[in-house]
Structure formats: structure tokens, C-alpha cells
């Protein structure tokens, strides 16, 4: 059971949160001109990385905010928590 440090509310139990999967996937602006392959990549393909993974979470049963975290998918250790729109922090793998 994870303990996530909401950037607003502080440490709260996983029960209050929802994980939104991989972060930093920007929606293409000009999708009309994309080919099926590029669009399929955006919709379905994920890095699903083993190691430090950048993902989106929402404090849905708390302040309602989305935020980004860097989390080890091996140890579940959370290495960084940062705002949506911020760049990925530099982290040792």
C-alpha cells in the first residue's frame, strides 16, 4: 500500500489516489495529418519501463489534483513528485 506525498495535501494513503499510467505523453496536435502508425503509437504504445518510471497520479479522493511522480517499478520507491507540466527531473536510474 503506497504512501504518496501529494504536492498539496502531504502524505496520504494510496486509497485516496488513482494512477493514470505513463506520464509525459503529449497528445499530438495535428492528428489529422498523422499516419495510422504514428497515431497507434500515441494511443496504445507505452514504454512500460522497468526501473524509474515517470507516471501520472491523481489525488482523486483528496484535492482532486493530477501530478507527476517518478517511481521505481522494481522497489516502488518514489524518487520525485512534481507538478503536471514540469520537466522530468534528472534522476539516477
Amino acid at each position, binding site marked *: *500500500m*503506497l*504512501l504518496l506525498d501529494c504536492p498539496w495535501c502531504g502524505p496520504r494513503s494510496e486509497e485516496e489516489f488513482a494512477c*493514470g499510467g505513463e506520464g509525459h505523453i503529449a497528445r499530438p496536435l495535428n*492528428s*489529422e495529418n498523422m499516419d495510422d502508425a504514428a497515431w497507434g503509437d500515441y494511443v496504445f504504445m507505452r514504454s512500460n519501463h522497468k526501473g524509474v518510471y515517470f507516471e*501520472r497520479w*491523481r489525488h482523486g479522493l483528496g484535492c482532486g*489534483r493530477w501530478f507527476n511522480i517518478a517511481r521505481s517499478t522494481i*522497489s516502488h520507491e518514489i524518487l520525485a513528485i512534481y507538478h503536471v507540466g514540469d520537466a522530468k527531473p534528472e534522476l539516477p536510474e
Partner: protein
Amino acid sequence: MRAQINRLAQGGRIDRSEHLNFRFDGEAMRGHPGDTLASALLANGVQLIGRSFKYHRPRGLMAAGGEEPNGLVRLRTGGRAEPNVRATEVALYDGLVAESQNRWPSLRFDLGAVNDRLSPLFPAGFYYKTFMWPGNMWPAYEAVIRRMAGLGRAATAADPDRYEKQYAHCDVLVVGGGPAGLAAARMAGRTGARVILADEGAEFGGALLGNDQEIDGAPGMDWVGAMAAELANSDNVRLLPRTTVAGYYDHNALTMLERVADHGPAPEPHQPRQRLWQVRAKQVVLATGALERPLVLANNDRPGVMLAGAVRGYVNRHAVRPGRRAVVFTNNDSAYGTALDLAKAGIDVAALVDLRAETPLGWVAALDDAGIEIMAGRVVSAVEGRRAVEAVRVGKLNDTGTGLVGGLGRRLDCDLLCLSGGWTPSLHLLSQSGAKLLWDEGLGCFLPGRAQQAVRVAGAANGAFSLGDCLALGAEAGNRAANDAGHRRRGRGPRHAMAGEEPALTPPLPIWKIPGDDAGKAFVDFQSDVTAADLELAAREGYRSIEHVKRYTTTGMGTDQGRTSNINALGIVARALDVPIPQVGHTMFRPPFSPVTFGALAGRRIGPLLDPVRRTPMHGWHQDNGAAFELVGQWHRPYYFPRAGEDKDQAVDREVLAARTSVAIMDATTLGKIDIQGADAAEFLNRIYINGWKGLAVSGCRYGLMLGEDGMVFDDGVTARLGPEHFHMTTTTGGAAHVLDWLESWCQTEWPELQVYCTSSTEQWAVAAICGPMARPLLAELAPDWDLSAEAFPHMTWQDGAVAGLAARVFRIGFTGELSFEINVPAGHGMALWNALMTAGQKYAITPFGTEAMHVLRAEVGFIMVGQETDGTVSPQDLGLGRMVSGKKDFLGKRSLSRAHSLRTDRPQLVGLLPQDTNLRLPEGAQLIGGADPSPPQLAMGHVTSSYRSPNLGRTFALALLHGGHERHGETIYVAFDGQAVRAEVTAPRFLDPGARAK
């Protein structure tokens, strides 16, 4: 009544003044407060307690705590019956009833014991090699095997007890209330930190409960008492006896099972039987002690063979004499104390057999004084007796420790064999927390590796086997844990003086399989009946990974999870493979540390509290008026309102007719409602919905469809424009939460530049939908100030005003294709509105209707139901709603609509179906095929999505998804179900024209 023939005359932590009556296998016996069921059975001279899993061998108690593999009983009766309870963990209470398990017809004469005779045919994994002939007979073999296996019987009646769950938070959780844990908790507590101390036992003290070590010149238990009292008086410390820490999860979340009322016959009224604690600890101190291992030798499972430490505990703590004449057999120092304590209690100790040639000097003199013979460099090579130990043989070990010199050796009469094969630090929880365990060759056990979470280990669990070390290192661990949790104040405590100096330890000598009597089975895992030979066989057959050995032999897979056997198994496998122990490694530790009751894991959210029933403000009215309910998400929605004598079809027909001929009323409160405001609200909707929103007039309403990025429909609803920058969105009942999440995720993360706020308003509004030709006059009566004419209040618009004297917002929209008004009032007024409508509607025979009639009505006019016509694979084009798709803008999912597969013309597309038999209601889900022959296998051309009888049409009809259906109106197809195929005509998905009626 049996007599307590093995009760010592004095000593022990029992209250001889009080007698507790209990029954084992029907026989009446007595014990005292302070007894466990195990100690009471021993006191009554009961040695045979159970039968083993596979061979049904007679078994007695081996241990005194949670590691007991043999002494499993079925406790209590009726709904409170519980199988596989360890007698060693059951506090005795008056009236206790227990019975033995896995035997038939009785414990003494068990027919299953024939397995022991046939055991040559049943080596590890035998079932993988046989029962394959004849081919289809496995289920028959299986039935027999299943009956033989399985240990205890479950209860057959419902459990009358309550189980609670509780969250807890602390700075320092100390697991284990032995000397190390008490010292840690005391130190941590003194810093002011929030401390929880949990111990499995009813009393704190750990190992001190069972031995007579002194601290500061007084009995160790005096110190324990003082500690417990200090802690109990600290506001910042929570003491939890009878509480097992069962699981160590991520981010220092742990579970603890508190046995609140198990030590009595039944819980008090309202008292839970057990409580599952979910703790979040900033820091954890594991002071879980160490477990003693048996030695693996032939027939080491005979009743009367016990762990030395356990025997010592029974003697000292329970004042029980587990035997009259004992042999102690050890590979380490700890059993010397047992031998002395036995002698002190007047039990004859025939010999102490130490397989080490070098004996611990510090102990030898004391044993000499007590007149106990020490036989060094010797082993117990054979155990004689079947239902009980009658004698042992003591042979001389050769230099390499692999065989005997001069045969099985000397015979010693005895009825008790005490084994000590060394100590295993109890690191289950640490391993669960993610830390590695490292093999220590000197101590012959695993020790903690680097912590992966905020945890430290103290006491015997950390390899500190002397009391002095346990106290000192425990205190230090508690102090540091509190410091790391942010409590800087240093705890202060005195240093302790041990009684005399504890003798220095002589290293143990691990010999994993004791040479001796080859004919007897040498058990490693007593509960799963796994022998050393089984493990060796597995290794020989190529099951080389310790995890393979575990699964092939089932070692360590019983209710004790191999607490006493895993290390022995590992040693034996390493020897068989001829590799060092660290290279073999241990099997994975998993929660729970000790089995946890399902009831406790389930807690109170079961039965009527399993899941909320969401109620609309009119729910009570629906109940009072006989509604049948349908489950939609967590809501209970009226399904139909049967009148006396009506069945479902009749009720639905009546409701449907009323909606088309007069006026009908439905509670539409459950629809999701989202308030959307902001300068960019219209732009936001443009990106969310497939159709355009910027041009919608204030006071207008519009139907919208939402797609996932995969282009498939996932929700729909009507959204109204309340102001230039203000919209009121409705969603499906089941989709409400998901839609709000969807909107939030886009406006927060992808389009933060859009000024828009989305706020749920589902709960705020009660909605009564009235529909039918008489809806207008009905509303007019309750809203006299309003011009309800089609011109003044056109279809797909909304207005605010008073209805029945209540502030209301009325939407001229509907889902039935009839003239309809959806009247929204603040939820507190929902019931008042409903009552007013019902009263005023009487003259029109106003008819409440439920979801089923609503489905018929909407299907008649070809409106789709998300979740019925759609299943996540259906696009707007498939539904014939392609014309809604805006070409001018991008929206979520748009690009997917032009993927190769989306453009195919043979996709399943929405059509109507008219079965040839106008009375036949096609089953929903039935498959569409081209010909009249339904025989398999063949490919379907689609399926029926909705199917009803229409009293308006006077016949049945259906909606379906049919491959290429848009081009197939007029064709005849067949509908296959239950081995038949019936004809139906393909039509447009619209059976009544809503146009005129609704407007």
C-alpha cells in the same frame, strides 16, 4: 474426567486455584488459567494429537508457539468451528471443545495410516508420474485424492462473530515483546514518539516466559512486568498483546491481527472476535526473536519428540511435564539450559547428546552437578516406538559427520526426546519488506541484509542470542528508530546486569541430516510429510532450484509455511547438490507471517454493508409503491412498478402505453450531472464531444457523444448551455464518475490553458421526467406562470421557474421520443416535486415507470443505450450517428475514426430487426447468421443488442449490430440461439417516428 497426571506440583505461570473444563475428541479434561490447549493436553497426558497430512502418521506436539506443525485441531463447534488451529496458540477457557483432524474413524485407529505402509509408492511428486491411464480417468482418481488430503473440516454454518478493521499510524512500531522488543519500545516511548508494541502472545516477555533467566538479580519476568507497566502508563504507547504482525507491505504499511476475544468461549455483545490493524509506521523495529529447528533424523516425528526450547517452556511456564525420562539432543548450546531445567523440575534426563565433539565449557559443570551425562560427538541415530517414543539409540558420529562409527549405538529408554538443531532468526517480515537475507556460516543461519524500508532488526532476530545483547541492542534500536522518526529527545534507560555471565557461545555444528536408522523416515517438513529422502529425490530428478524443490515436494507449503523446516530443507538440498547454502538460497517469504482469518480481512464491509446502495430522494416512495429494483452501478433504480397481479411484462406494457398515450413519470435523478464553467467551456466541450458546441444558444440543449482516443463511444448525454460560459452536462448513470475523471484529466494535464472548471452536481439535483401527450397540461397546472407552448418552450431548450412552488429548472428533452419535460429541483425538494406531480397527475392516470419501460420507449425510436448498443468497440458511424461527427474541429478520438479498420464498410452497424414471429422476443445477445442452419461452428454476422415487446407496435422488435448493416435494410437474416435459428427482417433502427411526438 482425566487427571492432570503430568502437571508439576509447583511453579509455572498458571493459576492452580481455578479449574477450566475442556474436551478433546469428546473426552473431558481440566486445566488452569495460564494454560494453552497444548499445555493442558500435555498436563493430561495426551501425547497423540493429530495425524499427518499424507501418511496419516501419529503426531504429537513439537513446539509451543506459532511454529507448531503437528498440533492442529478443529476448535469450537457449529458456526464457530474453525479447522487447523494450532493447539499451542489457543488459550484455554472453560468449556473449550476441540477435536483432532484428518483421521477416520478415530485418532487412534486411522484407516488413512495405510498410506504410511504404501509410502514407497508415494515419493515426492509421484502423482505427476501416474494416474494417466486410462486417459480420461484422472477426475476419478482425483476425487479419491481430494478426500484423503485437506486436513480439517470447515464450518458448515454462518459465522456469528464480528470482525473489525482499524487503521493506525505511529512513529515506531515494535514487533515482538520479548526482551529486545520491550527494551526497544521503552526507549522509543521515552522520546515521546508514538509507539505501538505488538506481540503474538497473551503476555509480554518472549523467551523469558519460558526460561528462568535473571535480570538485575531478579527473575526476568519481574523486569518484564515493570516494563509492561511503564509502557501501559505512557499515553504515547499502544500495547497490543495477542496481536500478530502478519504482513509487511510497501512504504511501511503493516497488518496486524489482534485476537480480541479468542481466549474466551465467545465475544461479548458488540465485541469483535478479531481486529485487523492496518498500520502505517514511520519506523519499524523487528524484535521477533528466533525459532528453534528440529534435527532431521529417522522417525523424528514420533509423539514425544519435541523442540528443546518448547519443552523448557512447558516446564517453566506451564508447569507441565512433557515426559518422565528425557534425552536431549542438540547441535548448539541452548539445549543445555533445557536439560538443567528438566532436572530441576524433577524430570529424569537420561543424557544430553551433543553432536559436537567439543562441548561448551560454561555449561558442562552445571550439568555435571545435576548429574546429567553429556554424550559428545554422538547423535541420536534411531527413535523407537510408534505412537510414542519408547527409546532412542545414541551412536558415535564419524569425523566427517556423514556416518556412524559402530552402528546405531547405545539404547536409552526414554519417553521424551528434546531436539535443538540451532536457531533461525525470525526474519519473515524483514524479507517481506524487501530486504535480502544473508547466510552467516558461523551462526548457521540467515541474518538481515540491508534494509529496503525504514526498518531495523533487534535481538535474537538479528543474531543476538544472549540476553544481555538483546536488551542492549533492543534499547539502541528503539532509540534510533524514534530519532529517525523525528523524535530527537534521547531515551534514557539503565544498563542491565545479567545474572552471572551468560556462558560464551560455542558455535553450533550444522549436520542437516543425522546419520542413523535408514529404514525410518527422517522428516523435514512435518506438516506436509516431506522427508529428507524426498528432497534428495527432487534434487536427483533435476529439480535443482530450491523453489522447484519446494513445489515438487511441497516442503514449506503447509499452514506453518515451513517455519521450522525451511532451513533444514535448504541444508539438505545444498548437500544433495553439493553446493554452498547461499548458492541455493531460501524460498520466498510471503505474507502472512501467520494465517489470517478471512473474516478479519473482510471486516465489517460485508453482508448489508458490502457496498452502498445509492438512494435518490424519491427512493422511499419507490419502495413504498412496490417498485422492483434494478442495480445500476451502486444505485437501485426502479425497474418497473408492478400492480397487484401483474407480472413484469404486463407492468412494462402498461407503463410504456401510458408514456405514449397519457403521461408517465420517471425518477431520472441518477443521471450524472457535471457543472462546467469558464471562459473556454464551449471550446472544452468541442474537444470532448464529437459534435460542435460553440454555436449552441444559451437556453439550448444538445445531445453529445464522447469517444475514447481509440474512437469508440464511451458515454453520451444531453448538455445544456446555461450561460455563455456555463454548461450543465448529463452523463449516463453508470458513467458519471468516469466522465468527470476524464474531463478533469484533460483540463488539468493536457489543456491547462483552457479556463474551465468541472464540478459534479449529480447529488444536488432531483430529477423527475414526465413524458407523454399529457405531460404539458400536467406541468402547466403546476407551473401556471409558464408558457409551455412549443413556440415559447421549444424542444431541446431549458427554462428556470417555479414548479409546484419549488424553484426548478426544466429541460425540454427526453429519452423516450415523447413530449417530455425533465424537471430538476434541489434534491431536498425532490420528494415534494414528485408528490405534487403524482397528485396533479391523477386525473391523467399518471403512471410511474422504471428503467425497463424506458428502455422499450427509447428503443422504439431508435435511441442507443451506452453499454447495450455499445460495448467499447462501436464507433459513431457504426451507430448511424456519423453525421454528428464534426469535420471542422479535432476532438478526442477523432483520428481513430479514419484508421483502416474504422473505415471498413463491413463493420457491425446498428440496425433494427423485426422477427418473423411477431410474438417472439429475440434473446438479447443472440447471434445473427445468414442461413437457417445454426449448427456450429460458424461465424456470426452480428448480435442482438436490445430486444423488447412493444405494445405500441403490437409486436416484438429488436436492435442489433449487423456486419455492413447500414446497407442491408430489407434483407432477411436469421437469429441463432439455443440451437435454433429464426427469421427476422433487417430494418432501420427506428420503429416509431419521434419527430412530431417529441416536438
